[in-house]
Every structure is written in structure tokens, then in C-alpha cells.
């Protein structure tokens, strides 16, 4: 049986926290650059120009792209034939976050109790989603999530009779309500099906998919394209100040659901759509 030590996991998580907050993935960065070239809104184009300059400064001078360095969200795929040595995996991930947010000069944005609201001062605990999968590898995906856009996210428990039409209206409503607050251009993560929480987790996971890669399902890929076009017809634009680039992508994930339900979750993400994956 293959064995890895939690010291390795801590070191990798630490580095990933820092990397994710300084560099966008190539697909996101390229999408913003392409949007700047094609934008025809006057303020919109100016704002996209600032975002490109911002990314360059962030990378070169190692200043976080955005001051909201997020709550650390993880999707971890643990191979069932892998043995982990040292401490428990959840503690190791949190230790990596603690070290990464401290050494990377990242903002500590987490309060320990949602009502008492005292800052934990090390950005822990992280939000961790585990999957047990075949094999002997450990795949760690970190997606630090800013809350300007997170606050504009929604879950709709639709009826089966609402169908595809109802799903589209729900997504459009969430994006229009978010307007400038979610820091457009946005990436829209959508989860359709499952149950209440499965839909929301899928919506979050959808944000981490390459923005150029549509769904593998033909009818869902069509829906993604149609929604993207309709969102960009709204004219909300970069910063909410008018333009054709309101969204970079609409990424939809689906799952089986109950005969009585059609859950739809919409997880909004700003243009600082950060995610880094490593396989150990």
C-alpha cells in the first residue's frame, strides 16, 4: 500500500494557498485578456484594462490579486488504496492553510462563530469536501472563495414541471440580482439536480472547471451557451458599468435527482476565480 506523510500534504497545501492567490489559471487570465480586446463598452473596456494590469502587478510583485483572499475551499479526492501517515488529514489541510495564509501575507477572513464573529486569525477552518475514489493518489484542489460574489449565490428548489425553462430563469435571476455586487465579469457555477446540498456543492465545483471546456452532455452544453449569451446581452458589463462582458463562462454540473424535485444552485464567482490542483 502506498503511503504519504501529512508533512507532505501540509507543505503542498501551504504552497497552493499562496499560488492560487497570486496567479489565475491560464484559461481565466486569457479569457479576461480576450474580453478586453472585444469589449465595446467604454468604462467596461477601461475596467478590463485595469484588471489585466492588476494581474501583472500581482504576479510580478507577489501582491494578492484581490484583498479578499477568501475562505479556503477544498475538493479532495482520496484514493482508497492510499495510506496517510502522521496526523489526521483534516488537521493537515488546516495546518497547510494556517501556514500558507501567514507566510503568503494573505488576509485572514474567517470568524470562528457566525454570530459571535471573532476572527480566528489564521483563516481556518477550511471548508473541505472529500470524495473517496479508486486508486492510491491524493488529489487536492483548492479554490479560495471571496465573499462579495459568494453572498450573491442562490439555491432554488424548483418543481419538475419548471423544467429547463425554469432552470434558465433561475440562473438569469441570480446573475441579474447580483449585478455589480459580484464583481463582473463573473463565472457562473450551476448545479442542477441531486438534493439541496448536492446542488450547491456541484455549483461550487463547476467554478473550478476550465472556462473553455463545456459540459460533456450535449443538452447541458447548449444550455451553458444560451445562458452565457443571454447574460452577456444584459449589458451589465465589467464592474456593472456597461459592456458586453458580464460573464466569462457558465459552467453547469448535473446529478440524478428525486421524482419530486429539481434543485438548482447558482454559485457566483467574481473574475478572480482562483483554483489550483495538485496530485500527490
Amino acid at each position, binding site marked *: 500500500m502506498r503511503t504519504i506523510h501529512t508533512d507532505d500534504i501540509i507543505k503542498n497545501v501551504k504552497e497552493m494557498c499562496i499560488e492560487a492567490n497570486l496567479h489565475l489559471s491560464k484559461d481565466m487570465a486569457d479569457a479576461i485578456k480576450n474580453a478586453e480586446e472585444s469589449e*465595446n*463598452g467604454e*468604462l*467596461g473596456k*477601461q*475596467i478590463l484594462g*485595469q*484588471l489585466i*494590469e*492588476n*494581474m501583472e*502587478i*500581482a504576479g510580478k*510583485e*507577489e*501582491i*494578492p*490579486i*484581490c*484583498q*479578499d*483572499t477568501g475562505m479556503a475551499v477544498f475538493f479532495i479526492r482520496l484514493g482508497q488504496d492510499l495510506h496517510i501517515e502522521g496526523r489526521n488529514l483534516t488537521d493537515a489541510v488546516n495546518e497547510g492553510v494556517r501556514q500558507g495564509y501567514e507566510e503568503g*501575507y*494573505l*488576509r*485572514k*477572513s474567517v470568524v470562528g462563530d457566525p454570530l459571535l*464573529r471573532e*476572527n480566528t*486569525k489564521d483563516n481556518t477552518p477550511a471548508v473541505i469536501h472529500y470524495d473517496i475514489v479508486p486508486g492510491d493518489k491524493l488529489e487536492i484542489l483548492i479554490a479560495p472563495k*471571496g465573499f*462579495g460574489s459568494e*453572498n450573491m449565490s442562490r439555491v432554488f428548489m424548483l418543481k419538475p414541471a419548471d423544467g429547463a425553462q425554469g432552470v434558465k430563469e433561475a440562473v438569469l435571476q441570480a446573475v441579474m440580482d447580483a*449585478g*455589480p*455586487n459580484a*464583481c463582473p465579469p463573473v463565472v457562473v457555477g450551476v448545479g442542477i439536480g441531486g438534493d439541496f446540498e448536492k446542488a450547491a456543492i456541484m455549483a461550487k465545483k463547476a467554478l473550478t472547471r476550465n472556462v473553455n471546456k463545456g459540459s460533456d452532455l450535449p443538452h447541458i452544453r447548449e444550455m451553458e451557451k444560451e445562458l452565457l449569451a443571454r447574460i452577456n446581452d*444584459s*449589458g*451589465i*458589463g465589467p*464592474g*456593472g*458599468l*456597461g*459592456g458586453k462582458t458580464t460573464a466569462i463562462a457558465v459552467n453547469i454540473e448535473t446529478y440524478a435527482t428525486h421524482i419530486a424535485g429539481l434543485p438548482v444552485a447558482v454559485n457566483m464567482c*467574481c*473574475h*478572480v476565480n482562483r483554483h489550483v490542483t495538485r496530485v500527490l
Partner: protein
Amino acid sequence: MERKISAPIKKEELITLHAGDYVYISGTIYSARDAAHKRMYETMLEGKEIPFSLEDNIIYYLGPTPAKEGQVIGSAGPTTSSRMDKYTPFLLENGLNGMIGKGKRNQEVIDAIVKNKAVYFAAVGGAGALLSKCIKKSEIIAYEDLGTEAIRKMEVENFPVIVVIDSCGNNLYETAVTSYRNNLEEQ
């Protein structure tokens, strides 16, 4: 229209700013976000002094990342303004002249902006590395226990913002999208 202004700013000057103006701010501004607003608001309701005079001043809704050695401040972009809506009319009644943030404000805030002749600016959300370059000095003056949410007194130079709601209540978030769409239809 492009404008250069200095902060603090008098009402006589800020009423000449119009929604849609691209403004570069130089001078002194203060950072305060959620927790600092709550504490200032409660302190004022108790009739006590808050850490700085609101008179003619501009508040920046900001919680920066920590500064590294040699840096003035870390990443320093705006946070969503609507969370401060509960407190803003009261602060405007008490002398505050301007706010820098991002995103929509509620009707009570818009009414208070008009009534008190104030101005709401947006900075570009998610451009924290770029905006940090315009902050030349930063000093925590109060509420240090709030960490990133402490109140900072900052010297800024040509800090770029856009007038979103002017002293007459014109709201760029509404007019910009409409005029963009109308322009497209005319083409």
C-alpha cells in the same frame, strides 16, 4: 469626464461631481468596513467620540491583506458597500461626505446622499494589487483588535474611482447599463 480632487472634500466641490465622472483622489482617506462601522455606529449612539472626525471625510470600504516588509499596505481593493447600508445614512447625517466601495446601495442610502449632499464612488473590485500602488502611507489609528477591519488613516495619490451616485442621486449602475444598451440599438 476626468477630474482630480483632493480629500477631505468640501460639499461645494463634491456637488460639481457627476455620476460617470472618472476621478483621481489625492489626500487623506480612512478605511472602515463591517465591524468598524458597527462599532462606530454603536459608539455614536452612546453619545461618545469616534476615532476620527467624519466632517468632510471619505471612507474607503477596505480590509487589506497584510503588508510585507517594505510595503505600505497589501492588496487593497474595495469590498461590497451594501453591507454598510445600515450605518451609512447615520454617518452621512454626521458629516461624512464620501464613500468608496463597490456595488449597489439601498434607497435609504441614496436618499441620504441627496439630502446631505454626499457622493458614492466605486473603485474596481478585484484590482487590489493595482490600487495598493496609489496608497502612499497607511497607519492604523483605531480598532486594532479588528485585524484587517481596523480603521486606517491613509494618504492616497491619484487613487482611481468612478462617481456612481452623485449628490443629485443620479445612479450610474442604472444609467450606464441602459445607455450601453441604447447605444448598441442605435448602431
